[in-house]
């Protein structure tokens, strides 16, 4: 790299003149941005303690970073002989005044881990308490709704129904259809070995109607709408809108939580039925291609293979999933602190919790209703 006259550099006088060090160029952060320059300077600068004479008058510029470099190099002491211009001295003095050794951060000890674990448990308990309170408040709001149904926020409700339900139709159909295709191809491989080709209708039917349709729909909606609910309510917290609402005497749960929970409890079973149908169509096409089972046969065999109770179970599960996703989304949204970082954390936690809870509750349903419909 070419050395321009702005490059920070130094010259050391011969011993006869007491090894005085003269600085040239710009001793600024902008110059130190060049690769290697800073390291080379540090390595070559003479380190003779306070005995050396320093002359900064020929340096074109000295900024705080340059001054910091010199001050550190001098070992946080003024050299005995120092020639500086008044502005340079002002900067050096400021650096000298404010430089201090920062206390080292304490290392984590076993006790901190223990306390951290305790705090984690308390936080989990606090979340649980908040969630129960939310459900309780929602119950009270439903009583309010029953008393004066014409005053309920129906506009919000229909808006959420559209955004959460109708807008999710394309993505759920795509995912459901593709999962149906994958499932059909995989089972077809196995069934062909036993010559049990016709049973693909049973496997696809039961799996999709009872489990996969509602689960896939719920997981997609948890990711899509659960996060949106948390973010919407969280942004309202960050911008003080929630407080403004409270000042007007409007209940958060009545205006924000209830319409969303109601919309999801209706949209979720519909979405899950839609996803199931898409999955069955995908599976039907794949079965036709891989096993030669015609769509006509598939549709005729389906009602015999899958009893209606499976469909009822799947749809009622979906209602529970929908309400849980809405409540978890609202719960985390209402707990967001008024800063952007908390908003991001809340949204992530909301989605993760919603998906985990959906899977947990699904397992619970599977155990409770293991003798229904099969």
């Amino acid at each position, binding site marked *: 790299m070419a050395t321009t006259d702005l490059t920070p550099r130094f010259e050391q006088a011969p011993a006869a003149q007491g090894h005085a060090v003269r600085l040239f160029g710009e001793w600024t*952060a902008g110059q*130190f*941005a*060049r690769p290697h*320059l800073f390291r080379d300077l540090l390595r070559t600068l003479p380190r003779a303690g306070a005995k050396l004479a320093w002359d900064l008058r020929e340096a074109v510029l000295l900024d705080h*970073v340059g001054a910091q470099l010199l001050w550190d190099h001098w070992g946080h002491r003024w050299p005995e002989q120092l020639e500086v211009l008044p502005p340079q001295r002002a900067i050096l003095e400021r650096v000298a005044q404010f430089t201090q050794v*920062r206390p080292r951060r304490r290392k984590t000890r076993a006790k901190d881990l223990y306390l951290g674990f305790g705090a984690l448990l308390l936080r989990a308990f606090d979340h649980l308490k908040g969630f129960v309170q939310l459900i309780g408040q929602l119950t009270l709001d439903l009583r309010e709704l029953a008393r004066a149904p014409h005053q309920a926020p129906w506009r919000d409700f229909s808006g959420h129904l559209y955004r959460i339900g109708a807008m999710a139709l394309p993505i759920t159909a795509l995912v459901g259809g593709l999962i149906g295709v994958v499932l059909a191809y995989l089972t077809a491989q196995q069934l062909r070995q036993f010559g049990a080709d016709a049973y693909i209708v049973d496997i696809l039917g039961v799996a999709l109607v009872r489990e996969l349709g509602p689960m896939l729909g719920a997981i997609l909606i948890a990711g899509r709408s659960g996060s949106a609910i948390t973010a919407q309510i969280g942004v309202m917290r960050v911008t003080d809108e929630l407080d403004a609402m409270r000042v007007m005497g409007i209940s958060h749960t009545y205006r924000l939580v209830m319409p969303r929970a109601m919309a999801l409890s209706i949209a979720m079973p519909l979405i899950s039925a839609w996803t199931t149908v898409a999955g069955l169509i995908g599976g039907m096409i794949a079965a036709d291609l891989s096993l030669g089972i015609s769509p006509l046969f598939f549709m005729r065999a389906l009602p015999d293979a899958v009893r209606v109770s499976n469909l009822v179970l799947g749809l009622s599960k979906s209602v529970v999933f929908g309400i849980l996703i809405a409540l978890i989304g609202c719960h985390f949204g209402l707990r967001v602190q*008024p*800063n952007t970082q908390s908003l991001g954390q809340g949204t992530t936690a909301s989605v993760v919790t919603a998906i985990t809870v959906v899977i947990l509750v699904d397992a619970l349903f599977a155990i409770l209703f293991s003798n229904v419909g099969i």
Partner: protein
Amino acid sequence: MEPVAPPRPHGRNPMVEIHKLWSVFDMPDRRLVIHKDLDLVVQRGEVLSIVGGSGSGKTVLLRQILGLEHPHKGHVRIMGQTVGQLSGRGASSRIGMLFQHGALFSAFTVLENIAFPLRELKTLPHKLIVEAAMVKLQMVGLKPADADKMPSELSGGMIKRAALARALIMDPPLLLLDEPTAGLDPDSSDGFVNLLRSLHRDLALTVIMVTHDLDTLFELSTRIAVLADQRVIVNDKPREVIAYRHPFVEDFFLGERGQRAMELLREYPFAI
């Protein structure tokens, strides 16, 4: 290779030179012309305040100087260079910007925020970066104990101070301020104005600020530029600007709220 650092205050070019600038925003239904043939020159060492009614494009002008908006026509030169030449690596050694709400990175502590531009150079050792950031932190009047706080734990005045420290970490010769005292109580506002004045003196800064606060305006400015009718109608010393005949100027300075601040003008001969 060109030196990374720019020519400093001893250079001959004016600090900022705006020539025939047009700022145009294309709306769906119409075309919004904010600036039309706007000219503005800021000399080194000035404290220039930009005033104007709301929607007159004060913040847009700051954003043009910063290169955050692209001029529709005309050009903006800073120290004789285009904004494009100035941006990129080490940009904070050339221009410092204090955004209205601080714009501190919320995921970093105060110290990490201040040290961020230095750390991004990737050439300086960690110890020096921390020390330099601590110096700036105390220079703007924060306490060493504030270093490990998160931005969400700070008050409005502390956020402005931390953001100012971050803007100044590489000692840029040009500092832009967007509403430096908006949202501060009178006490912190006065403290902040004093801080800005001493920094301007000590660091030989050129300052361009947008402000509505008449106290700040008269206490700090060496020049005032008035934006109206899509251009700079007057750019002069405070006393001359007040005497300028224009409906906006008369309403802004000679209205009731202007009277009190005018007292200050007599008290602070510095501003003249």
